[in-house]
């Protein structure tokens, strides 16, 4: 004879673990930290190698040159490049009760990146059981993103750019942890292959309720054929913000930065 067992939601007595409460507290810390941030902009692409980090760093520098407070969270934990692109000084990260200080570039861009923490040449390694590490590694990377948002003393920023790795997983994690949907800037190169991959990412972002700010088509004079930027902008009804050559001038970035 089956036992009559009450279910999880039937049990309402106080629970000392309070795991849902601990998760909610984590979310509140993120929200509190970002209260001074005017807008979070996720720089994403469904495709690797299109120059997301290059575009992110250039836009952050353009924002800073224009007198706006800009930060960059390098969310590519396994291939972080933002500190190098921002010409960040080699510095230890200062810790205090309120969090860890971001490192500031010569132009005033505040940045935090796994590259600031890892040994030179070493991959990001996590402590844990080796067997079936795929089960928990993604969760740890999501926790890393949450801590980079909540525990870095970003201060007041006009724009916080989040440089995402290829694909959509980190964007999903970002959406899960932020108090409001981030705006999205997508980067592509001209090819049809890039267009098809970026389309999926843009579709996903739109389904998540994120505002699509527009498309940057990168490497337009690099020997690639196609007009992916124009086609994607048309399909999604968003502006093609720039067609960026291999050696763009500062005015290219300033034009885009004004529209973030």
């Amino acid at each position, binding site marked *: 004879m089956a036992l009559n067992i009450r279910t999880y939601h039937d049990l309402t007595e106080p629970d000392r673990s309070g795991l849902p409460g601990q998760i909610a507290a984590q979310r509140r810390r993120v929200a509190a930290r970002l209260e001074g941030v005017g807008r979070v902009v996720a720089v994403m692409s469904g495709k690797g190698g299109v120059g997301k980090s290059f575009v992110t760093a250039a836009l952050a520098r353009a924002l800073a040159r224009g007198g706006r407070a800009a930060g960059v969270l390098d969310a590519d934990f396994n291939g972080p490049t933002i500190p190098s692109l921002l010409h960040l000084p080699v510095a230890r*990260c200062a810790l205090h009760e309120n969090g860890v200080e971001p490192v500031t570039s010569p132009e005033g861009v505040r940045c935090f990146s796994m590259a600031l923490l890892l040994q030179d040449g070493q991959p990001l390694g996590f402590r844990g059981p080796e067997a079936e590490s795929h089960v928990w590694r993604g969760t740890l990377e999501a926790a890393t993103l949450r801590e980079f948002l909540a525990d870095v003393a970003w201060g007041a920023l006009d724009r916080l750019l989040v440089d995402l790795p290829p694909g959509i997983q980190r964007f999903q994690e970002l959406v899960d942890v932020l108090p409001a949907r981030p705006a999205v800037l997508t980067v592509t190169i001209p090819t049809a292959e890039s267009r098809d991959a970026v389309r999926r990412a843009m579709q996903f972002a739109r389904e998540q309720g994120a505002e699509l700010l527009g498309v940057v088509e990168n490497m337009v004079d690099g020997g690639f054929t196609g007009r992916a930027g124009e086609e994607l902008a048309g399909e999604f009804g968003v502006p093609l913000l720039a067609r960026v050559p291999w050696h763009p001038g500062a005015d290219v970035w300033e034009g885009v930065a004004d529209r973030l």
Partner: protein
Amino acid sequence: MKFLCVECDRQMLFEERQLPGDGTLAAAFRCPQCGRAVGLLTNPMETQLVASLGVKIGGTTIDPQPLETVRGMVTTGREDAFEDGNGETGKGKGPIPAWSPEAHERLARVPNFVRGMVKKIYADYARERGIAEITPMVMDRARSDLGLEGM
């Protein structure tokens, strides 16, 4: 995760957590009516999943530390990544705790990437409880009480 004493139809209450140091976790829950206790035993992968979420079974009494999960879990961090030192004496009402030589030796084995944070957590724990000297036994108790797997 909740536990129900089916015979009493009462929710069992968290009582104690133990971290044997082999990646596993043991937590005891007791029925407030009949007093029967059950143990929750997790394997290393299950323990890791909980730790990866940044939550602690049984809750915690200390404030989260900056980049606590990153510093506690990353194994390839630079030794000099952080300027530590502020607040290593801990906070609380009790006296600033001393460190026994054995506890010092044990702390020295912790990677520098996370050592400052670990030292502060133990010092907070000791000061809040009025413990004058941090010994390996105090460190073990803190690990269990606070759910500090691996620290």
